[in-house]
């Protein structure tokens, strides 16, 4: 590996990370704005033009708040858990391809941080590690509400991870590869057309995996205060908050890559198409939040195990039969 | 290039730590975790040998080990849960009904 290649790889990693953080900051703005308009309000307006500086103001406010470590908390795990959540959310973006390649001074630069053979599995592995951050945050806070939130989160996330994994197997069968670039290359017709049920299950599970409403039971405000991060303040809380949005962006990017044709599209350059698709998914996330009330916990578990899981299995069988019949 | 022997030694060391854990600890769940560690150590040995033999069969065995470990975890934890319901403890020294 030459020095130039290492430099390019590093630059790509840094640029993608910074862009992700920017997107995270502005998706909080987007969420407040969209929610506001859906509820016939205006959303943030005061700080900057149409409230565009609001995320920065929020960041500064959180940064200067007092950083509290609860007495009786398990200090090491208490500090470690927001880091785990954030790292797991940010590292997943590394294998998502967001464009084909660009020429810079005659150097072909592929628009992805890493092209891994097992890219899809890598994302799943990281998302399964992020469960620890949430569970341990709940446990180490030494508070009953946080503990209940953490327990709910761990049960919810491992239950829905199964259905998520099964829902994308149809796509993997069509693509014949776990490499995200191969999956994008296989989509002359978007896989959402061939796998509508798979897409539906994937999206529903994505809501549950991100702890978004209507599945935001780990942080159900009116039962658990805010659940697993009730004892966190200042930047540690901000890390959880940012991780939630980073996770949403990663899941949206994954949905775009697996089901919506990735960066491919006519006329516009690939990266613009990719951003558009991710934005559409994010908007969908927020739209659902404004529309549906929260599930009850037993409903959530029943829905996951008795509806999504068998339907996902059935989807795989039907896909297999279809592939045998129509080649 | 790391030789196969090094991986085998590492696997053996991890396995023996697991064995020592089973002897030292009295908490049923931790004992169970030590057994998982031993399984994993064996998996490492399988993969190292599969590379040195130039065949993938060893990796398939690791796949099966993982399946067995998952099944074992589900059943084992269920047993521990029902033991806890009966006796309010999971200290393995307390479960001595079959001893005389």
């Amino acid at each position: 590996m030459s020095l130039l290649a290492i430099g390019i790889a590093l630059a790509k990693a840094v640029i993608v990370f910074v862009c992700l953080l920017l997107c995270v900051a502005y998706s909080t703005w987007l969420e407040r704005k969209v929610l506001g308009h859906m509820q016939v309000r205006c959303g943030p307006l005061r700080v900057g033009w149409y409230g565009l500086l609001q995320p920065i103001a929020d960041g500064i406010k959180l940064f200067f708040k007092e950083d509290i470590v609860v007495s009786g908390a398990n200090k090491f795990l208490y500090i470690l858990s927001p880091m785990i959540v954030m790292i797991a959310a940010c590292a997943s973006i590394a294998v998502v391809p967001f464009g084909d390649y660009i020429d810079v001074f005659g150097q072909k630069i592929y628009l992805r941080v890493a092209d891994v053979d097992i890219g899809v599995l890598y994302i799943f592995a990281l998302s399964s590690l992020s469960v620890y951050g949430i569970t341990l945050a709940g446990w180490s806070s030494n508070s009953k509400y946080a503990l209940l939130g953490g327990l709910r989160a761990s049960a919810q996330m491992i239950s829905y991870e199964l259905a998520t994994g099964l829902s994308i197997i149809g796509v993997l069968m069509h693509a014949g590869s776990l490499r995200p670039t191969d999956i994008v290359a296989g989509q002359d017709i978007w896989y959402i057309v061939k796998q509508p049920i798979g897409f539906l299950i994937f999206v529903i599970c994505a809501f549950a995996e991100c702890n978004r409403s209507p599945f935001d039971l780990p942080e159900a405000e009116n039962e658990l205060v805010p659940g697993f991060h009730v004892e966190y303040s200042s930047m540690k809380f901000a890390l959880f908050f940012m991780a939630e949005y980073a996770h949403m962006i990663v899941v949206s990017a994954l949905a775009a890559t697996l089901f919506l044709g990735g960066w491919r599209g006519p006329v516009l350059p690939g990266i613009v198409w990719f951003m558009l698709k991710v934005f559409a998914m994010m908007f969908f996330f927020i739209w659902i939040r404004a529309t549906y009330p929260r599930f009850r916990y037993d409903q959530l578990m029943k829905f996951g195990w008795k509806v999504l899981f068998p339907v996902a299995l059935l989807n795989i069988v039907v896909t297999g039969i279809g592939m045998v019949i129509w080649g | 290039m790391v030789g196969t022997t090094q991986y085998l030694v590492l696997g053996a060391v991890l396995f023996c730590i697991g064995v020592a854990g089973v002897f030292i600890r009295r908490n049923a769940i931790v004992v169970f975790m030590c057994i998982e560690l031993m399984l994993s150590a064996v998996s490492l040995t399988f993969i190292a040998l599969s590379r040195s033999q130039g065949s993938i069969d060893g990796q398939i065995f690791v796949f099966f080990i993982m399946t067995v470990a998952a099944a074992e975890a589900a059943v084992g934890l269920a047993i521990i849960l029902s033991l806890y319901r009966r006796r309010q403890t999971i200290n393995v020294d307390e479960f001595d009904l079959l001893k005389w």
Partner: protein
Amino acid sequence: MEQQLFWLWGGIAVISAVMMILKRNPVHSALCLVVVFVSLALLYVLLGAEFLAAVQVIVYAGAIMVLFLFVIMLLNLETEVRSQGLSRVAFKACSLAGTGLLLLLLLGGGAVKALRAMAPEQVSGVPGNTQAVAELLFTKYLLPFEVTSILLLAAIVGALVLAGKRD
């Protein structure tokens, strides 16, 4: 490079394994075991078995250990009380494990020699990728693969019968 990575991850694995059996709080033990599993997965990558590395993290760290943590939290276990004669027991256990290790190393050494005699060490020949694993799994090992599904089914039923509520 590979040598250093081996020592780094092997070292982390051994240290956290030792920590696991020494920590008295079961949650800490479980976390140490997660670290062991993740570093083992990284070692698998070094050995060219990327697929199994990912599966190792997903299955062991992501599912099995979360289940352990869940049960530990559910039972709200206190930290283990050290019994009286523990140091004696620990001494016995350590000497036993040490002897076992020596024995294992000797046997292993013999086995490696035998294997070397059988086949020359051809190291880079294995494409430890998903396709190769899948091909072998669905042809040569199809029957065992199907049998594992029965095993898993039996495990599910067993777990439900053992842990489910009795009305």
